[in-house]
């Protein structure tokens, strides 16, 4: 039986209340907007690239606790990663939040494993994924807008 504590864990609540890398980026190389029409989450992701390495990532926007926390942790996780490594993280994150409850998260996910409980709250998967989908759009085309629909 799914427990709220599996979804609203301390780490997630911390990132929601004190999001990291929150705010616009002056000289971003890539910007993308992500929208979750189901609940009104709206995120904008900014990236600074050096070659194929993500030098830094920031985000701004409004949304539920899960989408905010996910965006905050995403911007921390991709910093210093290559584009390819970030893509792999996205795939692993997606598998985790849409996978079977109790499955072991990919070790490469590290702290992102706190979101493993999301798979038991199907209505919130899009909230957790929004930041990653937006990151993906930012990596693949400048100034795109994605939706979770």
């Amino acid at each position, binding site marked *: 039986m799914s427990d*709220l504590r599996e979804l609203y864990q301390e780490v997630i609540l911390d990132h929601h209340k004190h999001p990291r890398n929150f705010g616009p980026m002056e000289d971003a190389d890539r910007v993308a907007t992500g929208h979750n029409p189901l609940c*009104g*989450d709206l995120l904008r992701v900014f990236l600074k690239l050096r070659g194929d390495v993500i030098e830094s990532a920031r985000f701004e926007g409004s949304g*539920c606790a899960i989408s905010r926390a996910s965006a905050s942790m995403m911007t921390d996780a991709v910093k210093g990663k290559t584009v390819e490594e970030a893509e792999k993280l996205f795939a692993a994150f997606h598998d985790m939040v849409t996978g079977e409850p109790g499955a072991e998260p990919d070790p490469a996910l590290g702290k992102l494993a706190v979101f493993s409980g999301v798979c038991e709250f199907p209505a*919130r998967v899009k*909230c957790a994924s929004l930041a990653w989908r937006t990151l993906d759009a930012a990596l693949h085309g400048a100034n795109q807008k994605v939706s979770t629909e």
Partner: protein
Amino acid sequence: MATGAASGELDSAALRSEFPILSETIRGKPLSYLDNAATTQKPEAVLRAMDGYYRTCNANIHRGVHLLSERATDQYERARSRVRSFINAAGDHEIVFVRGTTEAINLVAATFGRVRLKPGDEVLVSHMEHHSNIVPWQMVCGLTGAKLRVIPIDDAGQLVMEEFDRLLNERTRIVSVVHVSNALGTVNPVGQIIAKAHAVGARVLLDGAQAVAHMPVDVEALNCDFYAFSGHKLYGPTGIGVLYGKAELLDAMPPYQGGGDMISSVTFEGTTYNTLPAKFEAGTPHIEGAIGLGAAIEYVQRLGLDRIERAEARLLAYATDALQSVPGVRLIGTAARKAGILSFVMDGVHPHDIGTIVDQEGVAIRTGHHCCQPVMARYGVPATARASLALYNDRSDIDALVRALHRVREVLL
């Protein structure tokens, strides 16, 4: 009969027992179903009627010569008569069965609208409309060159009637407004709106999706030109709804969908159409849906819409006070005249998080834009949480919601 004999008022405990799903437990907690504006639960009588149809009467209607077909046709047409008497229409031929309110509005826009509207004509809707009463008009205005104009709402969620007066002019052909707002709970002054619209020669469609289950509706007294509602918001099944239209208007409208039943004769040289209401009912309809709707109407008529309205008004007052007592909660939609719909936001907490946490406590509410994105934008919120009442709700449901909201504060603040 679940009315308290002494007061003649509703006995909600007895009523709950007539709705099987209300005994479900949700994550180990009793269900407090407060998402009735999204869809209502169904009483045993409705379930029996639909199940019974397939067990004893199922056949295609209108043209069969065998007994089952006669039974099915009889049941379907009786359901239509029930609808007619429910809203006090002049005749059964003015009742068209459709899939729901959305289809009803699309039908009127695509037939009445498409023929009636010329470039420069105007269609007037309000800022609080559901997407189903915006998009079909946008589509037909795009096709015909007519202009869509919007009656503004004030901060309490009421139509600004002075602006309505200003917007109405001789080019206004259609006024289409919601009777009761699904996002705000506002009950609009539709009598006034109809009188003023008619004075400039405009026709009026009312979206009654949130009205018919909660207050008596009399289309003759209202004198509206069209009235639309859905079965599933009236304790009936999904996939069935009603378009009421004045006969002379429906007669002048071209058909919506072509096919069987809506014709009189078909040759490749030419086809003639059937009379009302068949002209607008192409193909095999949702027969058991209409029968279920008939049973639902019978159910609420026995309880009495007046009694239901009074009970929900009392519960709305209780719920309004109770919600406002939770720190940080702000109601969205505070019109002087409201039905049992409470949209709210909570400082520092996104509605989606509210919804998930109260769900854990067995409380079902809705969160999001409620298919009213313009209303959300008007209030500057991405979404609201919404609790909406029905005849089987009582104070225990509201108390459960309030307890759950306190839990939300514990978890997130």
